[in-house]
């Protein structure tokens, strides 16, 4: 009754398509997909930036995760958002991987409909 792959074929091509769509969003500067140790799986930025971001942000996310766990052992970090003057770093985190997005929020359209 249940199919192997859920009927909705998710595959590498979809990942690529979604990545291009996200990067083409206004203000998004880049995306890095990394593991918890900091190894980069996929990135849309250049090498040096990618390395910097992956090491620094994974450590930050690990720190954030330990803070959340210390405050409540049953809790876990799901999303981390850091706003600076020039950028916004968003980290979506699960057990194995992290999705790091850098965007410039000043380019957002204003005026909610």
């Amino acid at each position: 009754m249940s199919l192997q792959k859920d009927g909705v074929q998710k595959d590498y091509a979809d990942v690529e398509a979604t990545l291009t769509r996200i990067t083409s969003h206004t203000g998004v500067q880049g995306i890095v997909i990394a593991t918890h140790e900091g190894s980069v799986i996929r990135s849309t930025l250049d090498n040096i930036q990618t390395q910097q971001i992956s090491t620094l942000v994974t450590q930050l996310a690990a720190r954030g995760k330990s803070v959340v766990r210390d405050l409540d052992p049953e809790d876990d970090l799901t999303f981390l958002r850091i706003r600076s003057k020039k950028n916004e770093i968003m980290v979506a985190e699960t057990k194995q991987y992290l999705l790091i997005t850098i965007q410039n929020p000043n380019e957002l359209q204003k005026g909610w409909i």
Partner: protein
Amino acid sequence: MLPADRRKEELEKKRAKLAELRAAKEARKSALDASRRDSSATDSTSERRDLDDLVSSLVGDRPVSRNRSRDELGTPSSVSSPLDPHVLREALRAPASETARTEKTPADTPAEKPRPTLVSADFVFFDVPPREKVMYTKEIQTETIDFPNADAVEGPDSRSSPNRDAEPLAAEPPAAKTPEPETPPPEPLTEAERKSILSSETFLNFFDYSSKLVERALNEPYDFMTDYAVNDDRIIDDSAGKNVHRVCSFSDERWTRNRSVADCGWSQKHPELLLAAYSKNHASVTDADGVVLIWNLHLRERPEYIFQSQSDVTVAAFSDFHQNLVIGGTYSGQILIWDMRAKSRPVLQSPLSAAGHTHPVYSMRIIGTQNAHNLLTASTDGLVCSWQLDMLAHPQEALDLVHPSNLKSDGISVTTMAFPYNETTTFWVGTEEGSIYQANRYDRAGSKAGINGLDTYNAHYGMVTGLDFHPLSGPADFSDLFLTSSVDWTVKLWRAKSASKPSMVQQAITPLCSFEDADDYVYDVKWSPTHPSMFASVDGSGRFDIYDLNSEIEVPTVSLTTGTGRALNKLAWDKEGRRTALGSSDGLLYIYDLGEISQPRSDEWTTFQRTLAELESR
């Protein structure tokens, strides 16, 4: 671990110091003993000798040198550590020697044994337990990976963009020094590893979930850090907010191309969610026939959920009483239930048997309350079935609607069905022939189950495409009014005959009013849920008309054309009556915001009553 090392170091230092002190003491002691030796005293048996001397002194002899040596002894003994038992004895001896000295003179009397006055001396024994150092380290969940020989990882990487194995060798040594020297930099993944991760199921699920989160977060147009004090040259066009304007349109390259929207609806529980059911994609054979997409207003680029089915979904709705369920009726007559928590295939479906529908299901309604609700479906062969949502194996009741209108057969072909507000036993159906009938679900005093053949609402010349009863929304009750739309280019307003007073004779009921402004088939008409005199209709030329009966009866108040000119199939108002979703035949789902006109004023109800009276008097 550094703190442990430090502790070891400190312990070592302490031990060294202690040893040093002991050595110093030993040295002093040896010096002392040496000096005592010089003054004719031996080391090893010196204590014994002293005691003997004391005794002998008490008895008689008292070598003077002894006292001197003892005096010499007395002073250094006070300097050295009090823990030494040797010193203790010396200290004890010191007052003893004092007393002995004082009693030197009467030592001549050997008979009298002067009792040495023993003074109890309080010695404070310093028993300091070693200070416990509480070391408190919290480890993070990651493991520190030792940085291996980087050359081994290099491998046959000669491809372009995602490959950076050459670079990180240079970048990593500085990166290793920068933050903390605790975690060594991670080893870069090989290309093969990366590819395998990218295709793995866990990664794809993770990516799906997190990319949705990120896209929703990215779509937030309100910047919460705006500084209102700063002068801004940006011009905001505010006028658009008041008029009817398009908010967005939902479509997906993969899932909505070459399909047309068969049905659309809003969620009661989450006002930002809406669904659209799509028909078959004729261009692609491998894709599933029926697709239902759940869209989120905050996530415009992709659907929240994708549900599939084996046959065309012709009608779909969110379940009012279960927040995770979506119910659909198909072209094959099956009833399907999808769950948002589950995969994209239906979790429950009715079998393709003669017990259920065997014709396309074009109308569906959930009636009842939270605890006692039924799903009513009507198919084009005139069969109306009532289902329990957890048991789709066979319908609870099946009612075949027959009406001797057609010369050849009794059956009627139901295209739409609607229940008046809060009514569960009687409903109205619109048929392919253009007639509208009232039907009862059960036998009642005075009326049988099935079509009420006595009242006929015959005014349309073509198939009835939409039938909608007035929702109960305000102080006045207009719930016996209903609108119908048809392919004869008209929309008609009727007043339903009350079911409680069944008529005895054949009666033809005429509409109150007919709206003939359209130039094409009118595909759907719906009342606004909040404004009593407003309704909207969509037609085959892509026109979206909004009628406000309190202001204009003949023509629509607002009439818009969606850009492409393709036919609009369905229309749905959201719960507050502020937005409408329009499904078009090219697979796009348009969302229009109606602005100010959608909000009723307080006197709208009374005005509408007057309007109705005026219409009836014509």
